[in-house]
């Protein structure tokens, strides 16, 4: 019996080994290396110097850069909230459709989800172009001055972030809404609840897991945004991702790029830990 279980253990280790070693070499070690590299000193030319330092983190928290960190946080939170506000009605609507229409709408939501995101960002540059209809209408209505621009500002960055990540929010909410028993809403209505009250107190708590997944699916990539501010943002809409790329490609200062990466990791782990805590609490309440 014992030899059988130890033989089992060997087979287990043998078939786990390929992925475990691949992810250790190409994911765990590089991540740890980035954190260690953030503690290495460098001169202004980006050359590595011997020894250890916290100087890189002091630079991050200097007044010039801290505004970028704040912008990254508020842009991501605002975009996530707007995405959720749109996804809940869409998920609700899709879940109540007949099988056939549901499949069609689902298909229409999935296509942008799979479409190359560079192209989807670039399309907005076309739409908001100063020659475009939207720009001309806005100038005509006096919303923007004739010399003004609809692109290269933080508002456009938020718009394009929402456009890019909205499908990521809709899919988990739809999946949760699909499992929801809509008879519960009718029961609540029969018992005298208003439609809004029933929606808020019955539907929302029942899809909370989907909401949480959707929030994580949008918030995390948002915090790591780089291409969107790079293509449609201006100098005043840079995010942490741009600073990482800048340090890596322009300044060629690898320790600084690593320090920014480490900060971004912390920014992601914090809300993720929070979401996990809420999830554990919710699960406990259910038991």
């Amino acid at each position, binding site marked *: 019996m014992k030899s059988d279980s130890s033989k*089992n253990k060997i087979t*287990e*280790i043998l*078939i*786990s080994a*390929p*992925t*475990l070693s*691949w992810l250790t070499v*190409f*994911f*765990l070690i*590089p991540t740890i*290396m*980035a954190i260690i590299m953030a503690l290495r000193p460098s001169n202004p030319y980006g050359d590595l110097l011997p020894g250890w330092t916290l100087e890189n983190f002091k630079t991050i928290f200097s007044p010039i850069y801290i505004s970028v960190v704040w912008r990254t946080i508020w842009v991501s939170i605002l975009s996530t909230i707007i995405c959720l506000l*749109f996804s809940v*009605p*869409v998920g609700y*609507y899709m879940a*109540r459709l007949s099988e056939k229409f549901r499949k069609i*709408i689902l*298909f*229409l*939501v*999935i*296509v*942008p989800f*799979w*479409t*190359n*995101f*560079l*192209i*989807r960002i*670039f*399309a907005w*540059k*076309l*739409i908001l*172009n100063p020659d*475009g*209809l939207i720009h001309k209408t806005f100038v005509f209505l006096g919303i923007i001055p004739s010399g003004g621009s609809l692109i290269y500002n933080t508002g456009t960055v938020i718009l394009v972030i929402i*456009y890019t990540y*909205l*499908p990521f929010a809709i899919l988990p909410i739809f999946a949760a809404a699909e499992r929801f028993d809509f008879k519960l809403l009718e029961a609540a209505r029969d018992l005298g609840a208003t*439609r809004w009250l029933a929606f808020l107190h019955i539907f929302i708590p029942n899809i909370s897991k989907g909401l949480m997944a959707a929030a994580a699916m949008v918030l*995390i*990539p948002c915090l790591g945004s*780089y*291409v969107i501010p790079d*293509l449609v943002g201006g100098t005043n809409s840079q995010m942490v*991702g741009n600073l990482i790329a800048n340090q*890596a490609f322009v300044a060629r200062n*690898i320790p600084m790029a*690593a320090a920014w*990466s480490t900060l*971004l*990791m912390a920014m*992601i782990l914090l809300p*993720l830990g929070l979401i996990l805590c809420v999830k554990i609490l919710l699960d406990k309440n259910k038991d």
Partner: protein
Amino acid sequence: MKYKSRFSKYVTWLVLFFFYLPMVVMTINSFNNSKYGITWKGFTLQWYIDMFNNPKILFTLMNSLIIGVTAMLVSMILGSLAAFCIHYYRTRLQLFHNNLILIQLGVPDILMGMSLLLFFISIHLKLGLLTIFFAHVTFCISYVTMVVLARLQNFDFSILEAAKDLGASWPVIIRKIILPLLSPGIIAGGLLAFTLSIDDFVITFFVTGPGSTTLPVYIYSMMKHGNPTVVNAISVFIFIATFILVFFTQKLTDTKKK
């Protein structure tokens, strides 16, 4: 009584309009005879001709395909193995294995790109197709594992016990039972991996070297510095390819349910 919420219906159609408006504008503009901007200046096929006459597009597409196919195959094997042992052995090692894959799934592209760049530089590996391949397999593994794991949820393991009792060896069990039953999941995971690999820009941008430019990296450089009109024409092709790919994947997951 089927549904009463008009509000949710309007929001849904608004969202779909929002999703497709940029694609429609881009498609129309790909036939627009105006070099800059989007004012209509007459019909042209010039940008499509430019596209086919640009050898760099074909070259970078070939790079993308080479990496897409190889990363897909390797991640299909690794991901299926991972899903199988996570599901079959519920030990502490597998808990770690599962968490490693989940965390990897949650890491933003830019962090993966940055840490891989750092890693490749420090082990003195020359940046090129090989480093892109390593990076792509790394992020594809997690997706394949998730898709195959979902498929394993309704996999009846007593079949394996039965086969073992009847004297089947592991190679026979794998070939005759596990692979046929899991193949829709493995293929769906592979398709996802292929799409992710072909589409990836951020991670590739960090680990690419001279001569190994992929199509998205080239498209990005055209958007920033080159000719945006050709980008429109390429985009239309990518839209069509995506539509077809999603259609087939949907078909695949449909038969899975039956």
